[in-house]
């Protein structure tokens, strides 16, 4: 069975190729079903591989399948091969599993879209790229998938590209990711230069011999790459904008693919990080903690249902980086999996709400939707409890574990993480109350129901379309079964996903035992007494509950009267981070770029063009030598012959 690992990426690739050729002819909904089947096949292959790996002993659980020689260049040998080990198969399982649900969901969500089949074509390509990223047995194949998800995110974020904002959101994602890609590339170069191989098995075997400086550079560069892909400070800016795409795409990017790539890469390269100077893990932990807090504060003040979730993703990814920096690779991957469950659920739920609200995304226009959309509401609330860390829901286990390790690393980082956890509870509760409870704000025309939003939109000239619903009365309705089924499947996963690695008894740590052979090099082992662990766990849970209670107090009990004190403008605008970059790039930055452009145009191009014009002028003169008269040439020959004869005679060659 393990020789058939290649089937995992082959299914979505086949689906993609088939849709390229026949997609338009298949049309709706057949193209969607085909794409869903392709990813489902990939999921089945992942499950089969998982079962086969289970049957092996712990240290035999790694298979490399080389399909062909890819780049044999002297000493640089790269094979096109896949590596199936506990880490990559874990990733495959949840990537394909959640992607299947998202595909199914999209059939309902994209109903009636003129580019229906094209959407599924991109989705399949996206999943294929992600699987290449995860399954590649060397850094170059991972990089191939890395770039692939970047390109696909560009296609999908700007899927409705006739809207200017969507098109530039896609560009933003692409360009920001490029900065991270640079880091990853440099890391590949250094790895090859230092170890002579970029195969993961080779890297693991040779990493103890790495010099500290080299390992530090590689780890730092990998971290830069991961920062871009996994949206950490300062490169997070693309992710909140990435919600410009259709909601299933947001779910795919935020939950299953793309952003998890950075976390995966760092976990995969943990032997190198273990060899690096100690400031690299510190930097990872600090950046992670700050991102978690920073994004959580922004999420508190957002009004767009998807923006709250987008900043929440940035914040949760910060938690994962905090875990990696603290040496808690298992906790990071554990949180990544539970996050995939509940964030996928939340995004799909928000899509269902938007679908039911006829395209309206502003939460100020919602409220009281619980009765209108019961399935969406109940499943969404499961996701809410999971992300907020409510006891025994998925996020409870994974977040507490991260905070446990963070406390061991540094109480300050732990403190930041605790505040972020509190804010998580707060903004998610705020969202649930604004969307599903309270008085409906959609049963009257916009002008009457939410005058401030109406005024805002009038001022900005926003008309009904993507993101803005109708101005008249809205009639919310529950979504079709293709959309609710994924919610119903993800609900229990978000509820029970935490038991994958339950901290309550040692045997319950399935994930830790499963991943052990891959991450044993960098994994930090806690030595704290059990009582301390329990205390910290209770503390972290309390923080989440306090946040939830505070939000309930502000938004439900006092009907949002005090909300202006919390939803500060600076938070709504995301600390002006985005607009500062825009202002800088538009002002002083622009002048710098203009200067560079001038230099390029006049100095660089001038040198090149100067050489060309010198040649042109001299050859213009030179061509007059060619008169076209035969006798002139004959004279030239004769003179030449005489000169040669003269030379031979005078120099007396003989």
């Amino acid at each position: 069975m393990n020789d058939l690992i290649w089937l995992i990426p082959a299914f979505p690739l086949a689906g993609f190729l088939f849709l390229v050729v026949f997609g338009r002819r298949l049309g709706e909904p057949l193209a969607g079903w085909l794409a869903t089947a392709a990813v489902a096949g990939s999921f089945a292959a992942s499950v089969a591989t998982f079962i086969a790996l289970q049957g092996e002993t712990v240290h035999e659980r790694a298979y490399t399948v080389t399909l062909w020689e890819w780049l044999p260049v002297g000493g640089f040998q790269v094979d096109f091969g896949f590596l199936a080990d506990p880490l990559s198969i874990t990733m495959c399982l949840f990537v394909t599993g959640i992607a299947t649900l998202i595909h199914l969901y999209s059939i309902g969500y994209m109903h009636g879209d003129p580019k229906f089949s094209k959407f599924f074509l991109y989705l399949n390509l996206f999943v294929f790229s992600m699987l290449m990223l995860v399954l590649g047995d060397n850094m170059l194949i991972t990089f191939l998938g890395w770039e692939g998800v970047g390109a696909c995110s560009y296609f999908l974020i700007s899927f409705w590209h006739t809207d200017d904002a969507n098109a530039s959101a896609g560009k933003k994602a692409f360009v920001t990711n490029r900065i991270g890609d640079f880091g990853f590339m440099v890391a590949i170069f250094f790895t090859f230069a230092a170890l002579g191989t970029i195969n993961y098995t080779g890297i693991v075997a040779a990493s103890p011999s790495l010099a500290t400086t080299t390992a530090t550079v590689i780890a730092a560069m990998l971290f830069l790459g991961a920062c871009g892909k996994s949206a950490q400070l300062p490169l997070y800016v693309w992710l909140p904008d990435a919600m410009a795409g259709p909601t299933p795409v947001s779910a795919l990017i935020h939950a299953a693919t793309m952003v998890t790539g950075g976390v995966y890469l760092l976990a995969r390269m943990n032997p190198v990080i273990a060899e690096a100077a100690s400031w690299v893990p510190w930097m990872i932990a600090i950046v992670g903690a700050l991102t978690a807090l920073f994004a959580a504060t922004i999420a508190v003040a957002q009004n767009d249902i998807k923006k709250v979730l987008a900043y929440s993703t940035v914040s949760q990814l910060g938690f994962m980086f905090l875990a990696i920096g603290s040496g808690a690779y298992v906790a990071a991957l554990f949180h990544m999996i539970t996050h995939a469950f509940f964030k996928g659920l939340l995004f799909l739920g928000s899509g269902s709400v938007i679908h039911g609200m006829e395209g309206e995304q502003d939460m100020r226009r919602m409220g009281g939707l619980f009765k209108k959309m019961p399935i969406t509401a109940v499943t969404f609330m499961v996701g809410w409890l999971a992300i907020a860390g409510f006891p025994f829901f998925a996020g409870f286990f994974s977040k507490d574990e991260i905070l446990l390790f963070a406390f061991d690393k540094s109480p300050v980082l732990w403190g930041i993480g605790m505040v972020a956890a509190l804010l998580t509870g707060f903004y998610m509760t705020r969202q649930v109350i604004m969307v599903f409870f309270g008085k409906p704000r959609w049963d009257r025309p916009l002008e009457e129901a939410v005058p401030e939003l109406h005024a805002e939109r009038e001022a900005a000239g926003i008309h009904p379309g993507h993101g803005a619903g109708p101005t008249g009365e809205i009639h919310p309705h529950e979504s079709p079964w293709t959309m609710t089924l994924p919610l119903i499947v993800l609900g229990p996963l978000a509820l029970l996903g935490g038991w994958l690695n339950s901290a309550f008894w040692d045997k319950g740590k399935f994930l830790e035992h499963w991943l052990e052979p891959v991450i044993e090099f960098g994994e930090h082992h806690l030595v704290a007494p059990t009582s301390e662990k329990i205390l910290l766990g209770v503390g972290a849970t309390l923080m989440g509950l306090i946040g939830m209670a505070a939000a309930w107090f502000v938004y439900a009990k006092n009907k949002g009267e005090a909300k202006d004190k919390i939803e500060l403008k600076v938070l709504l605008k995301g600390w002006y981070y985005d607009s500062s970059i825009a202002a800088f790039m538009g002002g002083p930055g622009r002048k710098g770029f203009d200067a560079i452009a001038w230099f390029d145009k006049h100095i660089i191009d001038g040198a090149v063009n100067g050489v060309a014009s010198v040649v042109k002028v001299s050859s213009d003169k030179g061509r007059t030598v060619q008169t076209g008269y035969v006798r002139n040439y004959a004279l030239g020959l004769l003179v030449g012959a005489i000169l040669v004869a003269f030379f031979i005679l005078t120099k007396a060659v003989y």
Partner: protein
Amino acid sequence: MMLAASMGSEPYLILGAILFTMGAVGLLVRRNALVMFMCVELMLNAVNLSFVALSRELDDLGGQIAVFFVLVVAAAEVVVGLGIIVSIFRRRQGATADDLSVLKG
């Protein structure tokens, strides 16, 4: 034979030089393609004469072999050259070489 054998190489070489100069000057001053062609032949044969004379002087058959090569090449050249000249005659009136300067730079 006795007379020829007693003679040195100088008269032959001098004659060859005179013929070569005539050919070269003719090539440069005449405009008729046919005459220029004949001048070229004259130069070739002047060189042939020198070859043969020196071959005898140095008692080396290499010179005579070279002459055969020159004769063969000259014959081939005549075929091509005359062909070109004939086709020029057909297209234009006269065969003035200076009219044919379309390859001017």
